[in-house]
């Protein structure tokens, strides 16, 4: 009985979200994987720090592409209509592949830029996928070997540390939390006080676009209340 009702309610949810999609064709925030991946990619491109890796989303889409690839292949041997369909399926697949590739490359770019910082901060390290973590580690090793071979070994022992830190002076690159981002609310949610300056407010609404410090909207972004543009 209980099982049944859960099943029913989940079916109900699927149906209503489908219905929502049918009526809201021009709604940019429709809750499908491709739309979500697009926004996740845009967020990643624009945020100064690396954001949590969206494993499920990437895996789901990769699977969908593989499946669709087979459907498209089958179509090739059939009649003109099917070949035509296949061509259109391919076009969509290429678009989604581009999205995923660009998303992963954006993350690699940040990993290369902030390697040491990422590896030294367990809370940030958590945001990487297993493969990204491996990549960061070997990239760090590679850099260290290269630096020491090419010039650090000529310096006195005390000056050979790549990640030197003296009081507040550090040679490790860290993402700039205060850097500017362009943002808007996903839904109408009224006013929101800026963390850095309480006398300033922004309106959370799809119609209201602002340039603000990343640190001021970081939490809202994590909670999915805003999106970067």
């Amino acid at each position, binding site marked *: 009985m209980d099982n049944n009702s859960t099943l029913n309610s989940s079916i109900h949810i699927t149906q209503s979200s489908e219905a929502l*999609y049918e009526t809201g*064709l*021009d709604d*940019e925030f429709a809750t*499908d*994987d*491709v*739309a979500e991946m*697009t926004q996740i990619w*845009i967020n990643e*491109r624009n945020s100064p720090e690396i954001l949590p890796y969206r494993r499920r989303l990437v895996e789901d*889409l990769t699977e*969908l*592409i593989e499946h*669709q690839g087979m*459907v498209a292949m089958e179509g090739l041997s059939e009649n003109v*209509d099917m070949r*035509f*369909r296949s*061509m*259109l*399926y391919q*076009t*969509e*697949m290429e*678009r*989604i592949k*581009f999205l995923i590739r*660009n998303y992963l*490359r*954006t993350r*690699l*770019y940040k*990993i*290369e830029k902030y390697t040491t910082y990422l590896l030294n901060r367990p809370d940030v390290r958590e945001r990487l996928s297993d493969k990204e973590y491996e990549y960061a580690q070997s990239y760090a090793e590679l850099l260290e070997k290269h630096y020491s071979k090419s010039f650090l070994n000529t310096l006195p022992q005390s000056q050979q540390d790549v990640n030197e830190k003296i009081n507040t002076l550090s040679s490790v690159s860290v993402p*700039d939390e*205060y*850097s*500017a*981002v*362009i943002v808007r609310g996903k839904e109408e949610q009224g006013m929101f006080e*800026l963390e*850095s*300056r309480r006398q*300033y407010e*922004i309106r959370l609404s799809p*119609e*209201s*676009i*602002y*340039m*603000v*410090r990343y640190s*001021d909207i970081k939490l809202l972004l994590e909670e999915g209340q805003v999106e970067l*543009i």
Partner: protein
Amino acid sequence: MALPQKIQRQFSPEEIQFIAGNEFISIIPNFTLDKMEFIQTSYGPFMPPLQAQVPLWLAVALKKNRKCSIVPPNWFTKDNLQALLQNEEDHDEFAKVPFHYMEIAHMLIEVAPDEIPDIEHIRKLLKDIRECRQRKTRDLLGKVDGTRLELHNMSRMELNEIRPLFSAAFNEMTKLQFLDNQDEVME
């Protein structure tokens, strides 16, 4: 390099165009086909002369294969663009435009020039609207204070264009504020 240098600070125009590919547009197909199951969702059935709603990328693919005609959106007519320009010139704030108006206009003119009445006039209006909005953008630069800058009604392409200059100015203002605060603490 994982990410080419020219797209580290902003999207390329092609990438903005890619994003706009998800916007919906009406087409009139010249082929009959039942629903097609795409990864994102299904589109169709396609039955001429009935209009169908498809994303721009699909409309462009169909049009390039001469499989449909594209129905330009309501705002994309001589009269409506004229009204938009008037509105833009009459007010200091940015007029409300479709978020992807530049990309959609660009694509329509490129792939479906045969379906746009008064295309030369429309081109001219689009140019005037753009220039009027660029003037407002220049005035906006003076308002950058490192805290919060309102950019309401700017389109995605415009926001991406101002990004490198405006964020650089914004970040410098932020640094100045930190210096001010340090001075206060020292006094």
